[in-house]
């Protein structure tokens, strides 16, 4: 039961499925409930989807993390795409959610416990999220 670190290259819609399946598997191995594993898999699906939609390619890194008396999973989605010009707007609900052009970032933030985003126009975007085991 070694969780280690898994990198998934994201180049197509098939990779979205494979990234979220690997994430679910790692979450289950780390002892997350099946409900939490679904939340994590859904967040990974949205993050990988953003890569395919906005940057065409990138990668998702899944890693076990240890906190104070707790264990969790870290998901980092990185791309070298166009970047997000207005992060504040991208994090606002309604700009994203179920609409056709949304980034789904506020939703991903709600699914996970920690959320960080770094984006530079023209250089790419990195979204790092974590969820701790209950």
């Amino acid at each position, binding site marked *: 039961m070694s969780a280690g670190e898994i990198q998934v290259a994201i180049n197509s819609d098939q990779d979205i499925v494979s990234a979220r399946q690997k994430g679910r598997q790692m979450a289950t191995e780390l002892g997350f409930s099946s409900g939490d594993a679904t939340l994590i*898999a859904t967040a990974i699906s949205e993050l990988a989807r953003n890569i395919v939609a906005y940057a065409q390619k990138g990668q998702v890194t899944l890693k076990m993390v240890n906190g104070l008396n707790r264990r969790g999973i870290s998901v980092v989605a990185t791309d070298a795409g166009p970047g997000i010009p207005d992060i504040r707007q991208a994090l606002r*609900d309604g700009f994203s959610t179920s609409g056709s052009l949304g980034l789904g970032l506020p939703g991903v933030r709600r699914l996970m416990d920690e959320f960080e985003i770094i984006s530079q126009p023209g250089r790419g975007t990195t979204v790092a999220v974590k969820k701790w085991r209950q």
Partner: protein
Amino acid sequence: MEVPILKQGAVLIATFQAALSDADLNQLRMGLVQQVVKFRSRAVIVDVTAMDVMDSFASRTLREIAHMIRLRGAETVIVGIQPEVAFAMVQLGLTLEGVATALDLEEGLAYLNEKFKTAN
């Protein structure tokens, strides 16, 4: 992975067998709309029991399927959304507004029977 579509009288039943890629979902949308026309179906049931994750693309595609089929004068029922998947959808802010849902295939068929009975 292609989604098999079964014809059961005036109802088409599409059952997800595994996690679907965007391409699979697009193919399902085309296939269902074409078959509704071909068989003059009155209703479609999409069974998503085996679906691991319902993200923004999947829920948008299901909404689109239901709306297209309604334009053909037929009804769509989504059945089998798992509790965990429903929880994640709500957290993500996704809705299937205007689309009928039911617990499982049996309930979906019962819903349609009831609906057709009142319509006749």
